[in-house]
């Protein structure tokens, strides 16, 4: 397979030079003449009905242009996850609220000439609440307490997915073969280094343009047009340069407000959050409280599983319940389990809303099920890797829940490779020898995981591409890709370059702009490489065909070409051969333009053909200080079934980054609240991320066995890379301690609490 020239190469990312030099302007760096700064007043209390808002002091402040509250902004409810027209969902959020449902809820906004003035004015707004109501924090209480934040009550949604005969199985399985766990996963902050930002400005003819560092320009446009009653052609949304997202910028709630104010005041308006606001007033990884019951035969065959989950949607519905469905759809795509049920309730709590977050429920559900498997292995005396190997799905096996084909699933190889590279058996023996004594205890953990490649069969999953040759042989690839910092543009250039035999350097890849680029669903659900990449590949194939076709027309008129050779036109190593003569692209394309008067331009729309599963197996060695409860990750092996790495270094970086996020979820990241519902950590001082000294070296290994419908056989890596991490880390800690800790993150106090 080494005949690939650009695919499979670790080509440096486009725009890396500009990023290093600080030349790349992120949305938060943008400014425009006459631009106003829009600052939000977030509630500061967890819950309460606004009785009165007095904005007079704020309005009187020099430099304040206008103050907004629920009284002078659209009341139409929306859901930031509204994504395609007529999508059915609960719409319960408004631009500015008169009923506070979490501390970060948007109560007012000030447009002012400077951000400092706007901030000062926000402090001068006096909000009186009727009374401060009781917070809803505990998920089990929320379920039965009868208290609710919205009309629909709590729980606001229930789901069940099942196959086989779960009740029958559990009825006949002896209790010693049934293994139960209860797991709590934390509300996590995405922690993109660039805080949320957007810029909206009016344009002539009543048009409105919004620059947003988002993941789905067409959905942002749709929500703005719906809320402001504007036809789609009067709203233009441009994907701006973005300092990370991880799902945080996949929902639309700031853009419509900026757009409304820009229209109202006929001035450019920019919102740029601070860290506290990004933590409290955007979205979070949905917290879950899960219960699992697994029946396993004495030989280690997983017989059946029953899962019950409560999803914490936070103060607004957003996609809380959709995350639940996404979790359900993972349970039958990793192991062969003949009887299975997944049931969930989604509840509202007085905390920041859950939303999309790298892995979209997968890290949570895998934490529940993978930690639980270790309990079964321990009880049955079966090696944890062996137990998994006995049950993992083989390539192209059926998803018993009825999901799309899992495709060329190579999780078994991944797990075996990891076992070998990690030295699982030797490490296990060493641990057994040292026993569980002494201050520092080492343990090893493993977890397997699966994730998606787009939306095939569930939601619209298509992508438009425009690709054209310039007359010098360079290429414009016009896509609606949203590069979240992952190098997506480079990946697309590598794919197109491979097809067309053009150096990716010679390919300009445009990001999304609703006025100028073809439609695409958005960059989420791990569909970037697998779906959009495939669309790019197909479009490039069409362009290649067009080039040949037009060259053939041209060949007829080329001097010196023998008649019998005139139709023998082929592309060889980035040059065109006509008969025995070689021509550069530049020569040919210029002549096609001049003589055929034809532009080499292809518009192509591709919809995905499958949704195979991506897989990862992670191995962790952790050392626990049983005095302080601090955990250090000593060794880490990550093996991923990626089909084909388009850019191996980019894949490795995705994995390392995914591990950073996952260790955080396992050990330290949690937006925490006191009993009254006030947040305890609203900056990086208290909300700790894994920093460089806490980050282990990651030994990455890839299983590359091509996936039929992926571009050059590739499948997703961005999300799956973080899916097994928390489970693997927790399993290693539990192994070290001889416990089954299941309340994440495993902070030092929680570990100490479990030990004494």
């Amino acid at each position, binding site marked *: 397979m080494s005949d690939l020239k650009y695919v499979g190469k670790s080509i440096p990312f486009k725009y890396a030079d500009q990023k*290093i*030099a600080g030349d790349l302007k992120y949305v938060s760096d943008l400014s425009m003449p006459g631009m106003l700064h829009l600052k939000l007043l977030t509630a500061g209390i967890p819950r309460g009905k606004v009785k009165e808002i007095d904005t007079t002091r704020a309005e009187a402040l020099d430099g304040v242009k206008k103050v907004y509250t629920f009284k002078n902004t659209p009341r139409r409810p929306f859901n930031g996850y509204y994504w395609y027209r007529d999508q059915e969902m609960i719409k319960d959020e408004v631009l500015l609220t008169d009923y506070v449902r979490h501390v970060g809820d948007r109560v007012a906004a000030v447009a002012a000439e400077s951000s400092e003035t706007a901030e000062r004015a926000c402090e001068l707004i006096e909000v009186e609440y009727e009374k401060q109501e009781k917070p809803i924090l505990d998920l089990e209480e929320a379920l039965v307490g009868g208290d609710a934040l919205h009309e629909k009550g709590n729980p606001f949604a229930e789901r069940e997915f099942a196959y086989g005969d779960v009740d029958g199985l559990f009825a006949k399985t002896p209790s010693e073969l049934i293994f139960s766990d209860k797991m709590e996963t934390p509300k996590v902050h995405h*922690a993109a280094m660039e805080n949320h930002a957007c810029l909206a400005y009016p344009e002539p003819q009543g048009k409105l343009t919004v620059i947003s560092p988002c993941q789905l320009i067409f959905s942002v446009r749709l929500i703005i047009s719906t809320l402001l009653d504007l036809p789609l052609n009067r709203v233009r949304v441009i994907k701006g340069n973005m300092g990370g997202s991880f799902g945080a910028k996949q929902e639309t709630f700031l853009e419509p407000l900026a757009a409304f104010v820009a229209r109202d005041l006929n001035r450019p308006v920019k919102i740029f959050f601070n*860290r506290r606001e990004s933590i409290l007033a955007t979205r979070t990884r949905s917290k879950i409280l899960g219960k699992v019951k697994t029946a396993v035969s004495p030989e280690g065959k997983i017989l059946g599983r029953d899962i019950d989950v409560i999803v914490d949607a936070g103060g607004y519905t957003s996609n809380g319940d959709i995350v639940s469905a996404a979790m359900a759809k993972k349970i039958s795509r990793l192991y062969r389990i003949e009887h299975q049920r997944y049931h969930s309730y989604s509840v509202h709590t007085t905390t920041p809303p859950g939303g999309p977050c790298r892995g979209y429920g997968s890290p949570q559900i895998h934490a529940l099920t993978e930690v639980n498997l270790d309990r079964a292995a321990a009880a049955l005396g079966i090696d944890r890797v062996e137990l998994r190997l006995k049950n993992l799905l083989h390539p192209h096996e059926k998803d018993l829940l009825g999901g799309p084909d899992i495709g060329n699933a190579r999780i078994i190889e991944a797990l075996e490779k990891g076992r070998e590279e990690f030295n699982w058996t030797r490490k296990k023996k060493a641990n057994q020898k040292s026993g569980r004594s002494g201050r520092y205890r080492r343990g090893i953990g493993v977890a397997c995981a699966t994730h998606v490649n787009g939306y095939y069969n569930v939601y619209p999953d298509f992508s438009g591409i425009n690709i054209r040759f310039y007359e010098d042989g360079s290429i414009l690839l016009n896509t609606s890709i949203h590069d979240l910092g992952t190098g997506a543009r480079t990946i697309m250039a590598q794919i197109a370059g491979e097809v067309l035999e053009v150096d990716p350097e010679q390919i300009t890849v445009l990001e999304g702009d609703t006025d100028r680029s073809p439609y695409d669903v958005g960059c989420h659900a791990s569909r970037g490489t697998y779906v959009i990449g495939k669309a790019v590949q197909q479009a490039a194939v069409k362009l290649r065909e067009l080039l040949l076709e037009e060259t053939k027309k041209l060949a007829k008129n080329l001097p010196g070409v023998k008649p019998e050779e005139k139709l023998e036109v082929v592309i060889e190593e980035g040059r065109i051969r006509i008969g025995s003569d070689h021509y550069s692209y530049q020569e040919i394309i210029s002549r096609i333009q001049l003589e055929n008067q034809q532009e080499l331009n292809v518009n192509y729309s591709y919809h995905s053909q499958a949704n195979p599963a991506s897989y990862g197996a992670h191995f962790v060695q952790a050392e626990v200080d049983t005095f302080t409860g601090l955990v250090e990750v000593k060794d880490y092996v990550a093996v991923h079934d990626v089909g084909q790495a388009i850019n191996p270094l980019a894949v490795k*970086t995705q*994995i*390392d980054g995914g591990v950073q996020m996952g260790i955080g979820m396992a050990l330290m990241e949690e937006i925490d609240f006191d009993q009254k519902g006030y947040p305890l950590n609203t900056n990086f001082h208290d909300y700790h991320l894994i920093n460089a000294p806490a*980050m282990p070296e990651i030994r990455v290994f890839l299983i590359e066995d091509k996936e039929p419908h992926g571009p050059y056989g590739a499948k997703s890596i961005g999300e799956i890379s973080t899916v097994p991490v928390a489970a693997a880390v927790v399993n290693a800690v539990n192994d070290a301690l001889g416990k089954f800790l299941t309340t994440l993150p495993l902070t030092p106090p929680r570990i100490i609490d479990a030990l004494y």
Partner: protein
Amino acid sequence: MKINFILNDEEKTVDIQPDTRLVDLLRERFNLLSVKEGCGQGECGACTVIIDGKAVTSCLILVSQIEGSIIWTVEGLEKSGELEIFKKYFKKHGAVQCGYCTPGMVMSARALLNKNKHPDREEIRKAIAGNLCRCTGYNNIIDAITAIAEEGGFGV
């Protein structure tokens, strides 16, 4: 208040409110947009610049404190040519993803190499402990800084 300092090898005098933060001065007055703000509390390191040879977070410094200081940002390294080696190895090792933390990382790395020409990986980790990155998992950045140190050229 009038403040004099040397910014990226140029003498500057500004008349400015003394309670302005250095990050705001650099971004707003001098348009040095490499200096990013990620937390405003000295915890993320995105606003790291070098003052008198040392890495500092410019969000926790008032302009009144920089009288007579020598300040470098990534733009200055670009002008002096020093940035080339950072570009070379940060790209080669995949140390740049979204890029928002990158200029701050470069400045922390540059300051480290002032002090320690041949840092080991652990020393590099410590040196960038105050620079958060959510994309890369740091290891590629450490690879890049290691390569830069190996090629040398910095330090007294």
